[in-house]
């Protein structure tokens, strides 16, 4: 099999322990208690563990990286070693309440395919991604360099990211794909941003489903 691994930025924090990222609370707030959740590219499993502890969610994570598989086991979450690019063939349609893709969409090659699979398997989908339109990123591009930041922590030559996009790009993508955005939270440095989100926000969190009218 091919191992074109989709790496995520969800790595194990130094010293172990549960890394609660700012968007975890936003995601947990959207998820109803006891929900069944599939987390694609679950990294070290910290989001799943958070959702299990905060919302009693029953979850499974999909992850390709050996070290992240181990970290997820140590976080006591269900993790399945698999390559996201090969799709979600083993999962029944409509079988999960939420399918989550946290900080991974930008590293997936086949964007339309994975979003389509998320909305096939899940009744709703949740994605988080670094906003390329963030002012700090724009400034670095203006200075003639590829941006490096807390949400885009890689150099151009070692980044796993293959698709960088902005909040406006994503919403335009959704409109074109017949996707209905249900909720959006834009953040920067852990704070929720409400004005000029595509400029002021470094991280975007979306909940969406398939627009039945389309």
């Amino acid at each position, binding site marked *: *099999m091919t*191992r074109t691994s989709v790496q995520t930025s969800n790595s194990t924090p130094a010293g172990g322990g549960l890394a609660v990222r700012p968007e975890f609370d936003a995601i947990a707030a959207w998820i109803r208690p006891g929900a*069944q959740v599939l987390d694609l590219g679950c990294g070290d499993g910290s989001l799943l563990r958070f959702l299990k502890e905060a919302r009693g969610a*029953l979850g*499974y994570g999909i992850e390709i990286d*050996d070290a992240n*598989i*181990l970290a*997820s*086991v*140590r976080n*006591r979450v*269900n*993790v*399945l*070693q*698999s390559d996201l690019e090969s799709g979600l063939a*083993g*999962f*029944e349609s409509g*079988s999960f309440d939420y399918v989550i893709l946290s900080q991974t969409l930008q590293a997936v090659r086949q964007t339309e395919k994975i979003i389509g699979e998320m909305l096939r398997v899940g009744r709703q989908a949740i994605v988080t991604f670094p906003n390329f339109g963030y002012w700090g990123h724009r400034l670095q591009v203006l200075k003639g360099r590829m941006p490096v930041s807390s949400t885009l922590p890689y150099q151009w030559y070692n980044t796993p990211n293959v698709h960088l996009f902005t909040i406006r790009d994503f919403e335009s993508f959704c409109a074109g794909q017949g996707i209905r955005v249900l909720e959006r939270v834009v953040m920067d440095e852990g704070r929720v941003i409400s004005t000029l989100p595509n400029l002021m926000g470094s991280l975007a969190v979306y909940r969406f489903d398939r627009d039945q009218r389309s």
Partner: protein
Amino acid sequence: MNAPGSLGLVIPCKAQFDSPIRLRSGAVMDRYELAYETYGQLNRARDNAVLVCHALNASHHVAGFYANDPRNPGWWDNLVGPEKPVDTNRFFVVGVNNLGGCHGSTGPASINPNSGRPWGADFPVVTVEDWVQTQARLADHLGIERFAVVMGGSLGAMQALQWTISYPDRIRHALVIAAAPKLSAQNIAFNEVARQAIMTDPDFHGGNFYAHGVVPRRGLRLARMIGHITYLSDDAMAEKFGRALRNGALKFNFDAEFEIESYLRYQGDKFSDYFDANTYLRITKALDYFDPAAESGGDLTRALAGARAGFLVVSFTSDWRFSPTRSREILKALVDNRLDVTYGEIDAPHGHDAFLMDDARYHSLIRAYLDNIALG
């Protein structure tokens, strides 16, 4: 911290069972013995027992070594022992030779009490379900109400999976390694070639070769040789043997010229020295018959609907006998039933035999999974 150690000397035990057991075939065995070994201590809560199920040619001798054979440790000694991934300082580990085996449990070479002669051809065909039933009786014998873990690789993994179906209340976790939920036609085909090799050996005598003082050695050799080919990956064989010649040059005859020929002959010879031909036939049949979904119309999800165990499923990328795709079939049924499951797909080159190898990623995963099991 001490380096992971060996169990050192271990001693096999036997348990005698005098209440009749009805096998899946309908045959009834009035009494039988099971050979087993245990390592570590059953704790006061009796909740730290681990059952290790063996595959085709292995036995109850899982780890440690015998006083008279210190150079040959048990078949899963790299995994089981003090501070090893299956840590005998924490767990009470039980290895058992399955019914119909040839390592001490009642099998075709044992004396049939009704005739006073070896069972031979009369020994019933046994199945994975039968083995699990007898293992549960051994658990009763040892005072184990519920296993913390039942584990195995290959055919051993099928027993672990069957445990979650047959005795959902008696197993907390199943380690299902290098498994398939049922054999493919190709798998059965290989088994049939092995059986034909044995049954067409003139020394087989219809299974009653004991009376003739012979062993169908040629058949066993061939059976083992073909088995070995399926256990190794093409890459592993290329790596280990390539086209290397034993004596450097072609000799234009039919001796074992290539190293791989020599290796297969050696493995075949060794196997025919110790393995019972009737046991081999029955174990391959047990493999062929295993299909827990059959009673649910082929729906493995429904077959596992009553299971409650947590699962660790592991496959190996180079295993073409039971490929990762086969483990994913099991995985799907477990996820459909919303059972707790972790799945590791180990990128290992060794083929099916990888489950017996000391691979850091594989062993770390087992260790991490078992570390999460709370014990009384």
